[in-house]
């Protein structure tokens, strides 16, 4: 329906004529006559195109792998205002300014941008935007030539890059500073202090030690952490000549763990004590694995159980069964959802970060311990950032200062990672 005054007037006028004709005649309405009147109405009402949107920015998307161009425009004056009859915008593209143009996408009214993700890098494209209002449309002017390309550096990630660099440099700095003999204090972690005692207990009781490296594969950082800790513990186990039983649920973990334990026995001077059977594969299936581990626990009755790695729901089943056989249990995981179960059921639990620090702790090597100090610096950076940000926002809120607010927002956006 055309809303402009002139068209309404014209329509009313013709309607009156039509009605007059209707009532003046005795014979029934002729459909052909109705059609001809309708056509007359259409031809009489002038076509009223919408005012076109203007192209604003057309550019290659920054920081991407190519093949996309960003097109944005200023809303047509008839969108949400004026005649308010705009229904959509259609974006056209061509490889030459004279055409032929083809439609590559559309946006509904009220929107001002479109991503063309079908471009070929290196080819210059020309765009225009067509504003559509019902059957009428109007075009914007044609853009300058634009081509898409893949960037070598993603500028939007530079904040993350700098933060990562800062933390990395502090870790690396302390690794090398500690090497030079700087004495480093480290607080005691109960679970790690108890490792030797736990292994000793198993030796005395003549019962095996059970080591579970989690149920994920070597492509998970927690499993890597678990295996590095295994390397440390295995040396003590080799020295004490205690039995080790390590059932695993992934084949790559089996291979890695065998290498690790074998070398630990070699380093302890007891290569003949090692057997490939210490590390054996059960099944990849989460609950099948834990069913088998439970079976091992109740039949072999290990005196000490280590659970170090990534776990899911099966964590509680293992920990509770271990409890029922009276084993000392030392657990460590970075899965926040499983930590409560380990805390509730095990004697000692390494919480999150402590799992990753454990290997460094157990090694006692200055380089490794130095990296822990670097981690602490990272924590200080995080704490400082939070304090500064909260402080800025709070003061800006209280004083209602626009400039402080924008400063606070800018600071916060450094950590937005997008």
């Amino acid at each position, binding site marked *: 329906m055309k809303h402009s005054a002139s068209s309404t007037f014209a329509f009313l006028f013709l309607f009156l004529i039509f009605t007059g004709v209707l009532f003046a005649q005795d014979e029934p309405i002729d459909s052909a006559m109705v059609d001809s009147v309708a056509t007359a109405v259409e031809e009489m009402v002038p076509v009223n195109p919408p005012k076109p949107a203007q192209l604003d920015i057309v550019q290659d998307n920054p920081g991407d792998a190519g093949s996309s161009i960003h097109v944005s425009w200023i809303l047509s004056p008839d969108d949400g205002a004026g005649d308010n009859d705009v229904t959509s915008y259609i974006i056209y593209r061509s490889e030459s300014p004279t055409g032929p143009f083809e439609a590559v996408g559309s946006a509904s009214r009220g929107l001002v941008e479109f991503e063309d993700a079908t471009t070929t890098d290196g080819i210059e494209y020309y765009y225009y935007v067509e504003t559509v209002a019902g059957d009428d449309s109007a075009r914007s002017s044609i853009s300058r030539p634009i081509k898409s390309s893949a960037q070598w550096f993603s500028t939007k990630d530079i904040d*993350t890059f700098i*933060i*990562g660099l800062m933390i990395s440099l502090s870790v690396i700095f302390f690794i090398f500073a500690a090497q030079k003999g700087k004495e*480093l*204090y*480290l*607080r005691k972690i109960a679970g790690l202090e108890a490792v030797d005692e736990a292994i000793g207990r198993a030796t005395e009781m003549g019962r095996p030690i059970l080591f579970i490296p989690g149920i994920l594969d*070597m*492509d*998970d*950082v927690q499993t*890597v952490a678990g295996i590095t800790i295994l390397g440390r513990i295995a040396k003590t186990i080799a020295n004490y000549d205690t039995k080790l039983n390590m059932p695993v649920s992934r084949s*790559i973990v089996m*291979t*890695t763990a065998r290498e690790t334990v074998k070398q630990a026995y070699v380093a302890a001077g007891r290569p003949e004590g090692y057997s490939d059977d210490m590390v054996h594969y*059960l*099944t*990849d299936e989460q*609950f*099948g694995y834990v*069913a*088998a581990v*439970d*079976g091992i626990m109740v*039949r072999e009755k290990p005196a000490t159980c280590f659970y170090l790695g990534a776990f899911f729901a099966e964590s509680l089943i293992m920990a509770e069964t271990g409890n029922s056989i009276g084993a000392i249990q030392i657990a460590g995981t970075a899965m*926040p*959802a499983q*930590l*409560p*179960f380990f*805390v*509730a059921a095990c004697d000692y639990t390494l919480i*999150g*970060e402590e799992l990753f*620090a454990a290997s460094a702790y157990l090694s006692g090597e200055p380089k490794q311990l130095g990296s*822990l*100090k670097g*981690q*602490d610096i*990272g*924590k200080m950076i*995080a704490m400082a*950032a*939070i304090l500064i*940000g*909260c402080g800025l*926002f*709070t003061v*800006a*809120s*209280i004083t*209602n200062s626009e400039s402080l*607010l*924008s400063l*606070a*927002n800018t600071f*916060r956006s450094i*950590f*937005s*990672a997008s």
Partner: protein
Amino acid sequence: MNFDIGIWIAAFLTLGIMSFLYKDNPWYKISEAIFIGLSAGYWFVSLFWQNLVSKLWDNLWPALDALFTRGEFTGGLLYLIAGILGLMMLMRLVPQIGWISRWPLALVVGATAGLQFINYLVSNGVIQVYNTITPLFGPVSEAGGIAPVTDVWHGLGNALILVGTFTGLVYFFFSKEHKGFFGGAARVGTWFLMITFGASFGYTVMSRMSLLIGRLDFLVNTWITGIFT
């Protein structure tokens, strides 16, 4: 009586697994044995069809074909590297050259370290800091997309989150002794961590219950009811 062998087997195995709660027994042992064998087989079949066939074979075969029949180098040849790494892994079976299996392991561990470095930095580090930066107190204000602090309670809540995050981080400090003020802050941090653990614990209890209910429903409504209908 409805005798659907599938349901009877399922009931047998369900009860077998549950008998473990009483103590280890042959019923559990047989259920466990079946589970291990079947699940190991299941996983290998999945790996075989999804990884070996659809990923390696379907990509490598056309690329090799293109190479040997037409001398073309196509992207699929990169899968050759994956195949070679896999074979290197198998060299573990040959004692003399078993050391070569360390190469794919080194690649896996290095790649994991590299990829997870950034993943965790962003999702666990940077974004968490971003979310914790909020105004603590102040009159109503549109503080940059953050929900405005409309009342004292909201502000106190934000302040409490700040204190909890702070003291929690203090607890994790390795290079400082938990003594004095620092120790006190670490203790408070422990309390917040305990609340977190308790909340997670309470949250999951109900979902664990629903799993049990599911099994009991099967046993009673499907199996036992099936016996009498």
